[in-house]
């Protein structure tokens, strides 16, 4: 059965605004399940899901695992550091082996851009991209959209600035596509050495000064600064990065309005974001984490062929 999303969720770029809205709307009833004392519904009973993580991940892997377990799926976690090349077995062999075990879905995190699509083209199971290289991280983009929509009750016309290392960020790409499709205005802000040269061709505004971004934005999505970028020579020092691009309460205080703060985590406190901002009243960083489970439940449900209008009923048993 073909789902409303197709076989796989690989990226937000190819999705329509209707499909994105469908996922966000489907996530709403799933939020409530996680608030119950018995956090489990039988929706995916009998389904087998493999969480295939070629890159270290704590938050995303646990979030997917909770989403799967709360939907009663049987799950297996496969963690492997390094690329398939250093591991010895090729990704295509991994794919064939999974297929041979007759699994229903694969959640893949991989260091190579395109790895999720590579897998999806070679197996019949549904594939969910949990982050591929510097390409996309669609469920992160979706949970960011849900968090913004929770707060502002709209996405259309919202001004969102993505701050930091856009060049290497899959979160940035998924956010850019997702936000633009939903009618938001998108900007990026960071050192030019960490922005793709062709960034403006993606239809976003570029700010070189974080102060200007803060003046403009309704919300900032502050990206994690990968510490290896400094060794890679993209920026001279973390200290200077914080001085020039850090999201600080002093800078936010000069904004004409309250600016909502998102961060995909894990945070480098004192580098891209100061602690009093991360822990402050306008931070929705933990709401993002909560929404992550609901978004992933919605994606699992929809890809498994679940009908959107039945999501409410799929909660089962009438809730409280």
């Amino acid at each position, binding site marked *: 059965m073909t789902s409303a999303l197709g076989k796989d969720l690989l990226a937000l770029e190819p999705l329509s605004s209707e499909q994105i809205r469908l996922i966000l709307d489907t996530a709403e009833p799933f939020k409530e399940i996680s608030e119950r004392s018995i956090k489990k519904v039988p929706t995916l009973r009998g389904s087998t899901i493999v969480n295939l993580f070629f890159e270290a991940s704590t938050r995303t892997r646990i979030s997917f695992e909770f989403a799967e377990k709360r939907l009663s799926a049987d799950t297996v976690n496969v963690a492997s550091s390094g690329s398939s*090349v250093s591991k010895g077995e090729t990704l295509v062999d991994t794919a064939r082996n999974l297929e041979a075990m007759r699994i229903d879905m694969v959640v893949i995190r991989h260091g190579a851009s395109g790895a999720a699509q590579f897998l999806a083209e070679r197996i019949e199971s549904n594939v969910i991209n949990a982050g591929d290289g510097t390409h996309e991280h669609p469920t992160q983009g979706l949970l960011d959209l849900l968090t913004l929509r929770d707060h502002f009750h709209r996405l259309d016309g919202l001004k969102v600035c993505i701050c930091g290392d856009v060049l290497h960020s899959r979160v940035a790409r998924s956010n850019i596509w997702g936000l633009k499709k939903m009618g938001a205005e998108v900007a990026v802000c960071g050192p030019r050495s960490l922005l793709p040269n062709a960034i403006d061709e993606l239809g976003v505004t570029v700010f070189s000064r974080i102060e200007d971004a803060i003046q403009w934005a309704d919300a900032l999505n502050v990206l994690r600064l990968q510490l290896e970028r400094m060794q890679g020579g993209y920026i001279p020092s973390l200290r200077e990065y914080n001085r020039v691009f850090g999201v600080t309460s002093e800078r936010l205080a000069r904004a004409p309005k309250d600016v909502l703060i998102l961060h995909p985590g894990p945070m480098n406190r004192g580098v891209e974001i100061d602690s009093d901002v991360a822990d402050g009243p306008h931070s929705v960083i933990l709401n993002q984490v909560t929404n992550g489970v609901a978004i992933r439940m919605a994606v699992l449900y929809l890809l498994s062929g679940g009908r959107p209008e039945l999501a409410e009923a799929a909660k089962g048993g009438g809730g409280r």
Partner: protein
Amino acid sequence: MTPRNDAAPSILLRGGRLIDPSQGLDETGDLLITGGVVEAHGRLGEVRRDGAAQPEIVDVRGRVVSPGFIDVHCHLREPGREEVETIATGSRAAAVGGFTAVCAMPNTDPVTDNQAAVGFIIRQAQRAGGAKVYPIGAISMGQQGQTLAEFGEMVGAGAVAVSDDGRPVASAQLMRTALEYARTFGIPVADHCEDPTLALGGAMNEGVMSARLGLRGIPAEAEEIMAIRDILLARLTGGHIHLCHMSTKGSVELIRWGKERGINVTAEVCPHHLSLTEAAVEGYDTNAKMNPPLRTAADVAALQEAVKDGTIDVIATDHAPHHYDEKEREFADAPNGIVGLETALAVNLTWLVHGGSIGLPLLIERMSCAPARLFHLPGGTLRAGSPADVTVFDPDASWTVDPAKFRSKGRNSPYAGQTLRGTVAMTLVDGRVIHRA
């Protein structure tokens, strides 16, 4: 003048369109080949030879008869990677593609950086019986970019040029010395222009596609910086710099600048850079991964124009076979390169000739006459007395590319499944038919 080989059969190609830019020839007529050399061309009427075997008469009406194509840039992988390609399979693939001679790049294992290695390639090619194979020796020992290889001995053994292809010569001083030293022997220095620091880790063209796909890009400037360095070093030394597989509009402008000043620079372009753009990478198709990468439509247009106006002298394949396993992986980890010998003519015809950018004589100039002239090779002409290296092709016939049918061991082609125009009917080397469709 090529010595006659009277054991070679006599062939009369009857009624084809003879196109030979080396002598300004484009007319319907016959080509008589005897003793491995071109004996005569024109309207030959009835050919009768007293006391000798009568020539085999081949009707080539509706087909083009041209000097055999010469590829100055291919990778035959032997020695070292015989599971991917051998001199035998590569030179036979060349014959199928209408090439009568190819130049083999030295990035073999071990590297072709000495006279014994050059001699090995020549012996293997003689055994193979396909297209002629001319070795290109390495510029530096082991292609390490440190010390010059023995150009003199390699040339003595049969090398026709030097190159560290695939391993750009980073040191300007080494390139300077190579150009000076190569001048002694009258051979070109062929360079793969790439600034290794700018291109480091890149998997495709840098631009909006690389930004979308999250792949590390290689900017056009990585090529152009080295192209202008090489052109300036050719000016300094008077040596002949041959710039391999040019891929950008900027490179074309730099070559034009150099040629206008009389600098001894020549350049080649590959069929894929004349036909495809970075859009082919969409979906992370590793058969669209090569170095230099596929660029933009503006680059393709500039390269086509450069082929037309002579800024680019030669079309070469950069035939680079890989095992299918090697390409069946994550894009960033897949090796660079595609096979090209068996599709080059059809790609050039489809995009350049049928595309309306150039005519058949100019295509033959770029694929046969110019390569022979620049690399000082026999062939590239149908003049009486020259070696009978001849290609007969149908410029209009359509066919669908099926890599499973390639004679090359490589299957890595971005043209798989595409319908192209132009088929090779016959390839003759020294009067001997090495391919007949």
